[in-house]
């Protein structure tokens, strides 16, 4: 049950002379929600970008399901089962809501290129399967009635939800959420918290979470890692973090 999904060892990322992430270690197990917090510019999103292969690390090793994924191309890592959302929402703006979700099923299609052109064989069956799966996911996120709308016509909160639906369509084992409740009101935030917990329970996903909303993080996460200027300053269960002096210093500054 507590199978290890992601293992990060001694990760270093440099942009020119700046060390964005410095010797970061992190491990995420199945059915575990790990929070990654820290002040702005701490290197949280960079860590996510390295995990998904968008940024190449200077040194360090990443393992997913005991396989090395350091420096592998983004689509290869995605196909292994790591899905993510983006801090600055990155949807396919001009595609419809349901198409956005269906795109993520591309690596799971069973029909070949010629079958797509002629339209026989596995094409029809597969398209129906992808579409009904996309509908289920939209249903899950409460977006079912918006299926035919253009993605960029959705309000901000719904766009965040659509990103998660798209990520889930990849059928991931590990889900990385980059500031998922940014821009949500308190009611939406607490609803979303319940949703994340339900997701973990139903799909036994491992979830990595970057978030600035502390009450949300404390409520949802099993363990929290705090980083500042790329360096780990604290690691532990929520109530330990809440009372950690280093963390308070990093957020509020020294008195």
């Amino acid at each position, binding site marked *: 049950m507590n199978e290890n999904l992601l293992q990060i060892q001694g990760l270093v990322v440099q942009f020119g002379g700046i060390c964005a992430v410095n010797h970061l270690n992190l491990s995420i197990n199945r059915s575990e929600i790990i929070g990654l917090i820290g002040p702005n510019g701490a290197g949280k999103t960079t860590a996510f970008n390295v995990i*998904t292969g*968008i940024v190449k690390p200077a040194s360090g090793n990443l393992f997913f399901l005991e396989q090395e994924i350091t420096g592998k*191309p*983004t*689509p290869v890592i*995605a*196909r292994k089962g790591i*899905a*993510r959302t*983006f801090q600055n929402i*990155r*949807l*396919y*703006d*001009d*595609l419809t809501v349901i*198409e956005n979700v*269906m*795109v*993520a*099923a*591309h*690596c799971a*299609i069973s*029909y070949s*290129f010629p079958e*797509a*052109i*002629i*339209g026989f064989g596995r*094409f029809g069956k*597969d*398209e129906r399967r*992808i579409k009904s799966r996309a509908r289920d996911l939209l249903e899950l996120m409460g977006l079912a009635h918006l299926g035919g709308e253009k993605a960029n016509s959705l309000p901000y909160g719904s766009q965040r939800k659509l990103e998660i639906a*798209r*990520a889930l*369509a*990849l059928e991931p084992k590990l889900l990385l959420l980059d500031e998922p409740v940014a821009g949500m009101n308190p009611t939406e935030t607490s609803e979303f918290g319940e949703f994340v917990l339900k997701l973990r329970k139903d799909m036994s996903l491992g979830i990595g979470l970057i978030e600035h909303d502390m009450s949300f993080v404390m409520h949802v996460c099993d363990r929290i890692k705090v980083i500042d200027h790329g360096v780990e300053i604290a690691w532990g269960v929520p109530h330990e973090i809440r009372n950690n002096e280093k963390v308070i210093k990093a957020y509020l500054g020294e008195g």
Partner: protein
Amino acid sequence: MPEENPIRDRLLTGLALVFLVAFLWYADNYFGAYTQRILNNIAIFIILAVSYNLINGITGQFSLEPNAFLAVGAYTSAIFTLSPEEKIRSFIIEPMIWPLSDMSLSFPASLLLAGLVTALMALLMAIPVFRVRGDYLAIVTLGFGEVIQVVANNIIPVTNGPLGIKGLTPHTNIWWSWGICIFTVFCVVRLVNSSYGRAMKAVREDETAAQAMGINAFRIKTLAFTFSAFFEGVAGGLLAHLITTISPSLFTFMLTFNLLIIIVVGGLGSTTGAIISAILITWGGEALRIVEEPASIFGFQYEGVPGMRMVLFSVILIFVMLFARQGLMGRNEFRWLKLIAWFERLTKTGAKAK
């Protein structure tokens, strides 16, 4: 509001095809050579516009190479339809190299070969070309177009150099050009509506997000590029056997430029737009000739100015782009549903007016 109905849509599409075939049959039998020539041109430009739009509009990779692909297709098909005797007669600077000099194929086989050779060329080209994006991609592909022209001028034993290849049999007729045109549109529409098409659009909208969803952007771009190259190559073969004389100077950048105008006016990313625009611009270019002819307007004698149609054409283009910035169709596609809804609205307002 009418409802979505795939069976009705299919029937209507079939019916439209029957009408098109009937019209083509009529055109083939009763229209003059000039009109038939325009119809052939329209078909070839539809093939080119639709396939060029696949890479530029659907996949969003701004590239400028269709003149190169057209040239490769035209030369391949022309070289293979000439008989060995004709080759000896036309290659006067240097004889053609063996085994090309002895090879000869039927017209359809040469078209297929033209498509395959062009597609292979695109496949090889994709490896260096798709390392760059945006403006840089445009420049790299533009360079490729220039290279092909220089190569065609200089490998005389294959292309006959600047003299070009003359005296091709005019195999291209209404049936060949429109048959292949319909086939191309069918293939491209099917592709765009499949998961591959969605992946192409995802790459256009946000390449990083597409990659994060497991889409290999390089592979998808290469697929779109190769696929469109195949049809551009076939179109090249059709063009060669329509005008019966090809030379390197025929395949200048202006050809690419015309196609770019067509797909932008039609709406980048809309196959329907590419078709409508290809028809309007190819046919319109001929129809506008009327302004170059002498005429008498209200008793006032107008001499007719050569080149006037290009002035008018440019003015029309400016107005189209001012009032329809996304092109005629934007990114929308034709759907029977919309047409029926439009008709219903039309009849309703008509009834109200009474």
